[in-house]
């Protein structure tokens, strides 16, 4: 049965003559013979109803680009949305490096053949270590939520306890990821999630509520800094003390782009730090550049309990020359374990590369400057918005790059306002009304270094028009 040959540029051996030669060498008549181990009843004998192939590259490109052309971008629109994926500037050199074929296509090559990849990663860990003031940084995993969930599971294993305290004000998406990792209540190794309230005024953690809820069953206290709603948590020391007094671990989720100006969590007692690499030199890509890192002190128990990959620098036989190898630390055992180990897999390696380049370009001064610029612009926007009729700033605490505004007095819903802003070419702040009904018709605005004064003023003008 001779099929018409399907020659494709991506398939070198599609030419019939070559296939014939190979079949002869193998000693079979046709390719069908190579599938002999699949019983007939399991064979798919139909034809998959797929669209006819677009074999020419030109037409393929037009086809896909035409569909993608229906997207609007944050270049055409002014974007004030953040909430887990933020718009920051991506230096040209970062793009140049992450698009290098070698980095783009490398996978599990070993230490020698892919040395550059390992060294770049090590430089990422090293630079992050400086930002976080911690000596061990892991290879990141899918996103912040997963990293936080893993940190929580680590804490549960390390302490032998089954409860964790999280802020009530937390990204619902991140919370869902964490809860899945903590398992439903019916499962034996379930970790119970309890929520700590936030101070209604400041937006920061309510320490009294923390004290009320922490117990000898608490494995960890997890807070985020800045918080989900953008506020800089200034009670880090106390939270850490309260946690440690009860023998719980103190886990802090941070925004790495803030660490040029904000104190690293290690300096206020955090045992484990986690967060997303995304702000460090990645394009938003509709949420496709998330990357959750974890870091902690260089102590055996942490290294042993951490499921993520870690690499150590190793000397070679040439003096002063280094290579990098995976740390396969044995797990140690602590107490009665009822939680098994976690998994690790292909996750977000390319962003590790990009972030290493980003941090190298920025240097200490750049990281300080970007943090300062962001916070100033954010506060500027907050001031201007607070002056609008019908707009209230919800929290008195100090934001870093995101702040919450309330529109109750304006009589318009956030949904309406955002629809109207869209017509002005603006993506208004994230509507958090459904997430946190207690704050009424509220939206979270994100302002970063990419917003100019004119951008912010444009937002203000648009809101003036939109609000009655």
């Amino acid at each position, binding site marked *: 049965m001779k099929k018409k040959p399907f020659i494709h540029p991506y398939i070198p051996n599609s030419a019939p003559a070559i296939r014939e030669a190979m079949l002869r060498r193998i000693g079979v008549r046709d390719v069908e013979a190579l599938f002999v181990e699949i019983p007939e009843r399991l064979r798919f004998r139909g034809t998959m109803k797929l669209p006819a192939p677009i074999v020419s590259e030109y037409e393929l490109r037009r086809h896909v680009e035409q569909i993608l052309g229906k997207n609007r971008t944050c270049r055409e629109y002014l974007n004030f949305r953040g909430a887990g994926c933020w718009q920051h500037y991506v230096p040209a050199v970062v793009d140049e490096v992450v698009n290098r074929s070698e980095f783009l296509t490398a996978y*599990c090559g070993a230490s020698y053949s892919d040395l550059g990849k390992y060294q770049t990663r090590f430089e990422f860990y090293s630079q992050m270590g400086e930002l976080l003031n911690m000596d061990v940084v892991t290879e990141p995993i899918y996103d912040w939520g997963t990293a936080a969930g893993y940190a929580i599971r680590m804490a549960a294993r390390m302490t032998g306890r089954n409860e964790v305290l999280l802020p009530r004000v937390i990204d619902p998406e991140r919370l869902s990821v964490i809860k899945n990792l903590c398992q439903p209540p019916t499962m*034996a*190794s379930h970790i119970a999630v309890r929520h700590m309230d936030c101070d209604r005024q400041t937006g920061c953690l309510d320490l009294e509520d923390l004290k009320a809820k922490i117990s000898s069953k608490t494995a960890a206290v997890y807070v985020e800094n800045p918080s989900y709603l953008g506020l800089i948590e200034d009670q880090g020391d106390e939270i850490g003390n309260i946690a440690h007094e009860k023998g719980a671990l103190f886990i802090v989720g941070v925004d790495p782009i803030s660490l040029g100006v904000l104190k690293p969590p290690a300096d206020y007692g955090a045992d484990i730090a986690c967060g997303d690499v995304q702000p460090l030199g990645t394009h938003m890509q509709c949420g496709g550049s998330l990357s959750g890192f974890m870091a902690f002190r260089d102590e055996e128990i942490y290294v042993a309990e951490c*499921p993520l*990959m870690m690499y150590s620098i190793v000397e070679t036989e040439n003096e002063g020359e280094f290579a990098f190898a*995976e740390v*396969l*630390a*044995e*797990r*140690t*055992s602590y107490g*009665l*374990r*009822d*939680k*098994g*180990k*976690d*998994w*690790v*897999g*292909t996750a977000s390696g390319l962003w590790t590369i990009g972030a290493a380049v980003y941090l190298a370009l920025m240097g200490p001064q750049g990281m300080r400057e970007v943090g300062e610029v962001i916070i100033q612009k954010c506060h500027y926007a907050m001031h201007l918005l607070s002056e609008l009729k019908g707009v209230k700033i919800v929290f008195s605490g100090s934001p870093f790059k995101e702040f919450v505004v309330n529109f109750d007095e304006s009589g318009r819903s956030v949904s309406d306002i955002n629809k109207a802003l869209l017509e002005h070419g603006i993506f208004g702040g994230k509507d958090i009304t459904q997430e946190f009904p207690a704050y009424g018709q509220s939206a979270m605005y994100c302002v970063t270094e990419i917003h100019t004064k004119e951008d912010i003023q444009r937002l203000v003008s648009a809101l003036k028009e939109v609000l009655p």
Partner: protein
Amino acid sequence: MKRKKLGLIVTPIAGIGGRVGLKGSDGPEILKRALELGAVPESPRRAVEALRRLEPARESIEVVTYPDEMGESEARECGFAPTVIGRVRARETTAEDTESAAREMMRFGVALIVFAGGDGTARNIYNAVGDRWPALGIPAGVKIHSAVYATSPANAGELALKYLRQAGSIPLRDAEVMDIDERAFRENRVSAELYGYLKVPYERNRVQSAKAGSATGDAVAMDEIACDVINKMEDDTLYVIGPGTTTQAIMEKLEFQGTLLGVDVIQGKRSIGSDVNESQLLKFAEDRRARIIVTIIGGQGYIFGRGNQQISARVIKKVGKENIMVVATENKLLTLFGKDLLVDTGDPEIDDMLSGYVRVTTGLHRSIVCKVTR
């Protein structure tokens, strides 16, 4: 640079019978018969194979050994200039020589004792050093039941080299030394006792874990297994804990003094019997529900019949197949390379009953399904 000391003991008689169709080689008559049949002592050749793997590090290793074919000639053949200690009394070396050699090497302060031989040799080494000194076997006997041997002479050499070079970081595992009744063996009856445990360097491959996380070491695995077992224990059930290090870990987790080589009984997390025999077990199982927890003993994969004969066919029959739990670390299972687990209770009916598939608990909430045959 300070050289590392490696103790080497070769028992040239080991393995001599296998080639010519005799089993084992203990005893002068068998030896004589074997030599008559043209047997060539296997151990020296295997020892040389192992030593070859150490040749690259010749400069940094001091081989400490006994005279002539008990190690000296093999070492010289590989280009070493060994430190020869001890004396052999006769041309034909005996078990006493092996034991003396091991004791003297311990005193000499070698980092590791490698020995080429079979089950008999393992017992001799154990008699001399117990679990106080690291040792590693170069396989050279016939069928070996003890688990103290590397998988091949080459691997023994490699592992010894690694251990000498990286002394802190190669862990030691407890490996069974089995006492095989050689005479019974030649009459096609196998009678094996668990003799003791030697501390043996751990043969571990660096596994690629880029996509799946790291493998678990034995100490942790045993701890996880113990946790898993204890979590499931019921107060009204009697637990018969068989010999072995993995089962011993359960006793330790419950903070009991367990008998490594014997059978213990607990209930309601209390210890009610220590190093018990068959009749005691039968009495215990008389009036209440009982469960048996056993592990793999020895290098051949036996779960019943080698080293735990106290848990006899009668006991198993009384307790019932559904109440038998098998525990073992994944690493132990992998040393069997996919071969079946074995049972030999002496009662074919019970052996048949036990045959089939068994879930072996290998960790917390983890088990591997293995085939059991006679």
